[in-house]
């Protein structure tokens, strides 16, 4: 990746270089570099305790990095003045329970740097968009969990930030509200905002994100587009729906049987062969084929393979579990 190509900088909204943050007991973020382009939905993945939140806190200016640099829009990140360009929804949601919702939104928007009238205008706009007009005089303690999540989301994106960072945005949301928020995330990305989406639930990311970075124990272990990563880590597995598939194979077969899934056989193509070779072989054997599909690994599997180095059989079990 041409990190030091100046052309590349101008495209990246956020550029993080060799960022380090060590705490007394652990290396929370250990030399992470990232580059995130404008308008992407970027997934920051990793198990609990991987260093995602620490990384985000440095990007939002809450923590100072021990080492490394952050660039926002090609300029060095200035926590004091750049907060207006960032919207951050922490994993642990927080609002003043006893404060009226309208006043609260107004207060938090003004703290971001909006003027009172600007803030007012934006709040009204968003409240209409998400059908929250009647909430103005309610208190947060009167809202359901889903409702307060929605409010939290509005507060995060209200000031129209360039960079929106959402930490586990769907936790605790029902499918209806999840979809509502998901749609808004897509719209914001289309309108030019860049979204960093941090989670340990990999399956959500496959659906939403264009690009991802996998983080474990403070280090980035992988990044790229979801499509490329899946291609890179595919294991030449195919599922075959067929009648009378031979149960035992001789050494000439271009594939080996590794198991079954949804009443279909799963095969791995041997090195040097192509899918067509499998089909040719099976047709030659007189097998009637109904379906033939490539199985791409889920991000979850890739992650587990990378961090744990588990044997193939276990990965496969994992795969079948998560796909069922």
């Amino acid at each position, binding site marked *: 990746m041409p990190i030091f190509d100046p052309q590349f900088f101008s495209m990246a909204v956020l550029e993080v270089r060799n960022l380090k943050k060590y705490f007394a007991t652990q290396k929370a973020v250990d030399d992470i570099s990232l580059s995130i382009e404008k308008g992407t939905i970027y997934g920051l993945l990793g198990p609990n305790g991987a260093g995602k939140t620490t990384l985000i*806190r440095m990007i939002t200016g809450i923590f100072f990095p021990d080492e490394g640099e952050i660039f926002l829009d090609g300029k060095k990140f200035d926590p*004091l003045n750049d*907060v207006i360009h960032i919207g951050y929804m*922490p994993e*642990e949601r*927080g609002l*003043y329970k006893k404060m009226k919702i309208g006043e609260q939104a107004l*207060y938090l928007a003004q*703290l971001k*740097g909006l003027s009172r009238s600007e803030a007012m205008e934006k709040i009204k706009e968003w409240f209409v968009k998400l059908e929250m007009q009647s909430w103005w005089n309610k208190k947060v303690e009167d809202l359901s969990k889903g409702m307060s999540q929605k409010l939290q989301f509005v507060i995060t994106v209200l000031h129209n930030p360039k960079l929106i960072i959402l930490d586990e945005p769907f936790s605790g949301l029902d499918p209806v509200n999840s979809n509502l928020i998901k749609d808004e995330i897509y719209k914001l990305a289309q309108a030019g905002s860049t979204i960093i989406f941090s989670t340990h639930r990999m399956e959500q990311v496959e659906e939403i994100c264009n690009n991802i970075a996998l983080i474990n124990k403070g280090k980035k272990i992988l990044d790229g587009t979801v499509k490329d990563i899946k291609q890179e880590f595919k294991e030449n597995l195919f599922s075959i729906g067929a009648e009378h598939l031979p149960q035992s194979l001789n050494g000439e077969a271009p594939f080996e049987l590794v198991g079954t899934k949804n009443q279909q056989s799963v095969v791995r193509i041997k090195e040097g062969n192509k899918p067509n070779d499998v089909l040719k072989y099976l047709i030659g054997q007189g097998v009637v084929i109904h379906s033939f599909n490539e199985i791409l690994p889920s991000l979850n599997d890739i992650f587990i393979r990378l961090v744990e180095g588990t044997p193939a059989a276990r990965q496969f079990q994992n795969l079948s579990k998560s796909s069922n």
Partner: protein
Amino acid sequence: MRKVLLIIKREYLTRVRKKTFIITTLLFPLLYLGLIFGTGYLAEKTRANLNVGILDSSGYFTKSMLDKENQLDKSSRLTLIENKPDVKSLELDSSDYDAFIVIPPLDWQKGNNNIELLAKRSYGPEASSLVEAKLNKIWDMVKNDSLKIDAAKQEIMQTSRLGVQFINMSDPKANAKFANAIGLACGFLIYFIILIYGSQVMMGVMEEKTNRIAEVIVSSVKPFQMMLGKIIGIALVALTQFLLWIAFVFLIYNITKASGGGDSVNSLVGGVQQLITSINVPLILFCFAFYFLGGFFFYASIYGAIGSAINEDVREAQSLSFPVTMLIIIAIVMMSAAISDPTGPIAFWGSIIPFTSPIVMMARIPYGVPGTVPWWELGLSMALLIGGFIFTTWFAGKIYRTGILMYGKKPTWKELIKWAFRKS
């Protein structure tokens, strides 16, 4: 700066608009007066009125003398036991008496300092001194009779006295009698304000941390601004409350004066006027405002740091804030020493060291500046307090920055200090 103002505004308005603010503003003066007068009244009411039996072997005490004195002084009841039983055979349990006094044979010219008041249980020193005083009044009658002092002479003996009044030559306004009361009132007010509003700062910070709104806010403003905004906002609430109290007192005073009521009202108004003319009002008000704000900022930032360090558990708050509360209590103990001896070493050191100066110095100032408190002492105390609260705010800011986003185990004071001195 705009953001700090926003935070101040929110902290101020959410508190002032609360019902509890209005209620405490109205109730506190009543409670404060109640505390002062109520305890005196209760002590009066609940004092044991002893029923004492007197076994007289001297022959000086007669039933008529005791009856006469029982009429005049009802604090206890003295009864002569006529049949003179043996002391050992006295049955306190079955008799109506709370105690007995056994009077041995006496010489009227010498008296006796070791007369015993025998009781089954302990009564306070006040109860026994009341009995003693009453017994001595009867003894006075005995002496007057023996010395042949008639009623007119007795009157002279009792009323003709010499009174001494203390005048501070370098500051004639420093009236020791009023200074004592004003100093006590000022010291206690500052004590209450630091304790009540200091813990409000602590609870406010705790609320933000446990609500998890802290992380939302620190992504917009610096933790230090957040802490400063809260402390200043709450200081303004305290100031508002205080000004309301002054207005309240002023209003009541003027209404009472205008009503032009009877003698008691006039004497009260006169008393207040005498009070006001006897002290340096502008100086006391200025110093009060200074020590009130200085003391508040000094302690509030420490309370804020504690609030940032604890999690949901209120018990953690108690154990961490205990040393701080202890310092404030030490200040109030030093204050009572400083009031009885406003130029002594406790008064001096207590009013110089910033931990105690807001309370101790404020109790000394009514005794007169520069008469009792020299200008240089006042200046040094103020400078050290300013330096002190700048230090505690800085120190607390460092703890706050780490604590506000730290969840899990309760830190100890040692760890807090480590946070404060760690480089960013």
